[in-house]
């Protein structure tokens, strides 16, 4: 039996559909986690996210997800995608200051760049600290769609440059991973990333 990968389903806007398809394409077995009781049935977690930092945290709280999530994230390999990575931070500044899950010592701030925001489209990642998740993916292109970025100094695994502005595109702390881009929307490179996650 291969590991079961749980995708946390919270809020009105989860892009669960695409992530589920991509993980399955990568050979993973998926369980969509609609309630806290399901958390015990999975071996790994994916934290998706579409929406704003504030709404995401409110939805997690409404569903009673926060402390069970914090609990399982002590041991389960976890991948945060886009906003799912951002809410791992201590604080977010989208629609006011909001407390995040606080797993990563980071803050989430608006991108200040001399170009169109949201940063939208395919861009490459520069892996500065290799790990299992990003194995074989240095300089690959992934799809980004975001207006905020994670500000962190200690757990960066990849950086990306947009209009001469460098920002954190992937983080890694032990068994916790986060990517700012959308691997589920990034063709073969994205599937390869999920293969790496399935194989962890």
């Amino acid at each position, binding site marked *: 039996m291969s590991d079961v990968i749980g995708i946390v389903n919270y809020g009105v806007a989860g892009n669960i*559909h*695409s992530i589920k398809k991509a993980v399955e394409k990568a050979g993973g077995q998926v369980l969509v986690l609609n309630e806290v009781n399901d958390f015990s049935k999975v071996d790994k977690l994916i934290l998706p996210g579409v929406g704003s930092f504030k709404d995401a945290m409110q939805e997690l709280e409404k569903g009673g997800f926060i402390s069970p999530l914090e609990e399982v994230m002590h041991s389960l390999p976890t991948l945060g995608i886009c*906003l799912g990575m951002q809410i791992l931070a201590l604080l977010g500044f989208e629609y006011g200051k909001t407390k995040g899950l606080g797993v990563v010592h980071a803050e989430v701030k608006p991108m200040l760049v001399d170009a*169109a*925001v949201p940063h*939208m*489209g395919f861009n490459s990642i520069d892996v500065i600290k290799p790990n299992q998740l990003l194995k074989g993916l240095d300089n690959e292109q992934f799809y980004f769609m975001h207006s905020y970025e994670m500000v962190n100094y200690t757990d960066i695994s990849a950086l990306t440059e947009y209009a001469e502005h460098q920002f954190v595109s992937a983080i890694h702390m032990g068994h916790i991973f986060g990517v700012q881009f959308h691997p589920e929307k990034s063709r073969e490179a994205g599937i390869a990333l999920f293969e790496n996650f399935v194989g962890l």
Partner: protein
Amino acid sequence: MTTRIIVKLDIKPPFVVKPVHFEGLRKIGVPSDLARKYYKQGADEVYYIDIVASLYQREVLFDEVENVANELFIPLAVGGGVRSIDDFSNLFHRGADKVVVNTYAVQDDANLINQAAKTFGNQAVVVNIEAKRWGNHWECYTDCGRIQSGKDVVEWAKEIEQRGAGEILLQSVDTDGRQRGFDIDLAKQVVESVNIPVVVASGAGSIEDIKTLIKEVSPSGVAIASLFHYDRLTVTDLKESLRENGIEVSE
């Protein structure tokens, strides 16, 4: 940063159709087949626009959207008849990554843009502008260029950015489907008036047209329909040619 090469599927369920001047529909094929074909050719993104939903005052057909989403590991933007937060939510759950709104926001209630941006994040909210030239300015139209709104395109573009839209799909009623080049003046004015990404559609008739647009306007993306639909050009060949001309596109 790469310029996005986007395929636009204009849908009159159950077919992808090709409107000329937003009228005179021709059947092209089945949406999921075409989406798969363009994905394999290397398209960066697909825009799925149900061009009759608003006119018939019905919702986008969700099963159709899901069929298309199932084929793609690239972003899918879906529009047509979107008028509520529930419509946004349903489309995201069926596999849309962005939702495109036009008629309701222009004619009825622009606050839908604010609400959607706050709920789903501005990156997920696209506003479709159908522009028609009147002398030296442009006016917003809706319902596939049928209904005039009285709103000035550049003013509206600025307003929707303020309201939280994350992207503009800029179409021209005058040049759409004619394959005789883009309305470069229009594209330039809109791109220079806002700080959000603009995807320019309507008019690609040759690789040359696309190069000219990218070089003169630097839009975030180019949306192409006819040129691909009639197999006069593949996405692969277009990207190759753009690269040879020093224009960055994704691998």
